[in-house]
């Protein structure tokens, strides 16, 4: 019970048709964290989340949520977990309020909580309308309201911005950021876009083809980025040969001198050498690889994830 982990999986595996869709995943999420669960579509994010919630059975491995075994204490655990899986679930013929009421009756919480969550996701005005007339963004917000209904300690949001336009994505992101962090809610949010969780996650897990290939802080992920120095000079080719002559590693990339990350002293020395030999230095810039780039390099997928 005194486990520090809100979510802890050990060698979690799901086989489908003889192939591992989720392959020996060890996921660790601490209390109070906002954990970004990243990976391209089809990498196994949703399957992992479905297993966390007891919606699907693992082929092997263990899952503990809130320090308890999901197989043995599923109901106890789920009382404290709010979730939104893949796309929003709703009963189209019911109003937003009635949708929440149908769930509230199962959670045994006061009715006033419905108005609270409606206010949080700003659906109070539309609460009486049938949900089938809602926009996708409103359905997503209703889904988040449903997840928040039971005042969960752990919130699991699977692709909460999927299929939304940029304005909708921004709206959901602001909403998630505004969630009461003071109450110590732990949030697992999955996405196929790094940029989406970049600004809110404290830690990330990256899954690719069922394997967890990275799990650490965002800061550590950035460090993995190969940063470098770019220099614009008057005659790059000659400058490069000159620097090689002085024992520096340099290359020319699209008319720019490119170096690996170097200490300041070395850069100073290079600049001095170049100036001595009459090269004009227009600008020196540090080029940090974007998180998107790192993410792409790691998952080995190009273009749209």
């Amino acid at each position, binding site marked *: 019970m005194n486990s520090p982990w809100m979510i802890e999986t050990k060698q979690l595996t799901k086989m489908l048709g003889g192939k591992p869709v989720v392959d020996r995943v060890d996921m660790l999420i601490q209390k109070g964290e906002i954990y970004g669960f990243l990976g391209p579509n089809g990498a196994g994010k949703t399957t992992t989340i479905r297993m966390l919630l007891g*919606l699907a059975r693992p082929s092997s491995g263990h899952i503990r949520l809130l320090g308890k075994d999901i197989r043995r204490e599923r109901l106890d655990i789920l*009382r404290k977990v709010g979730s939104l899986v893949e796309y929003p679930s709703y*009963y189209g013929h019911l109003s937003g309020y*009635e949708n929440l009421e149908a769930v509230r009756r199962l959670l045994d919480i006061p009715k006033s909580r419905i108005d609270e969550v409606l206010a949080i996701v700003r659906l109070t005005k539309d609460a009486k309308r049938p949900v089938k007339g809602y926009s996708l963004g409103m359905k997503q917000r209703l889904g988040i309201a449903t997840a928040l209904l039971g005042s969960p300690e752990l919130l699991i949001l699977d692709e909460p911005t999927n299929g939304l336009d940029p304005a909708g994505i921004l709206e959901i992101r602001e909403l998630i950021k505004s969630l009461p962090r003071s109450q110590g809610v732990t949030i697992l949010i999955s996405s196929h876009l790094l940029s989406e969780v970049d600004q809110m996650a404290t830690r990330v897990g990256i899954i690719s083809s069922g394997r967890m290939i990275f799990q650490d802080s965002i800061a550590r992920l950035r460090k993995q980025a190969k940063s470098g120095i770019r220099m614009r000079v008057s005659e790059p080719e000659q400058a490069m040969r000159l620097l090689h002559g002085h024992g520096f590693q340099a290359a020319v990339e699209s008319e720019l001198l490119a170096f690996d990350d170097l200490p300041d002293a070395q850069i100073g020395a290079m600049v001095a050498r170049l100036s001595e030999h009459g090269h004009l230095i227009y600008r020196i810039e540090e080029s940090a690889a974007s998180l998107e780039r790192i993410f792409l390099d790691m998952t080995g997928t190009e273009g749209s994830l």
Partner: protein
Amino acid sequence: MLAMMRSEWMKIRRSIVWLLVPISPLLALPAGLLGTSATDGAPWQEALALLAVLHAMLFLPLLTCVFAAMVCRYEHLNGGWKQLLALPVSRTSVYAAKLAVILLLLALVQLLFLLALLMVGILGGFAPPIPWGALLSSVLGGWIACLPLAALQLFASTLFQSFAAPVAAGVVFTMPNMLIANSAQYGPYYPWVQPMLAMIPREHMAFGAFGITSGTLLAVIGVSFAAFFLVGWTYFSRKAV
């Protein structure tokens, strides 16, 4: 389980299912008024036999199929299952509540049918006394005979991710009811015909499967209900959603 039922009520309250509940009784009323006469030897029994044929042969099994598909429809439609089953509810209580809703709807249908029958008798000026024993055992028997079918159709409705497939299957299997009722050998074991066997008074139909005694029929119904429920419940408990 009570919370589960109250949640189900929330979902079914605004459903079009309520339009289907009174159909058969509403049709039975004019059919009874036109097709019976107070001068018959035993007008109450005549009316029951007449009205129960259409109601129990066709409507009861079809409505069972539709109700079963209905209580699953709004869960299939927009990811209801995964939201529901990720809540602190046991799958057993979810499954039991769905079955209970089907059975409650069927009970309502039977109640309205009884009401229609009573109105036929009263409006038609049938001589008292009202044979309560025969009427109630028919209506209640018909309801009990729907149990195995309800369990079977609920299984089918959770199995298929659609509304149409289990209903279509139900229709296909309901159609040969008249033929199957003629078979003393297979009739009693055919879930779609059991409501008819249970509802129509024995003395009016003494052929084919109607020759079966109430006790035997009840035993068959009990065993097949238990079997269908067990299969469906086991499947649902392990189903990945």
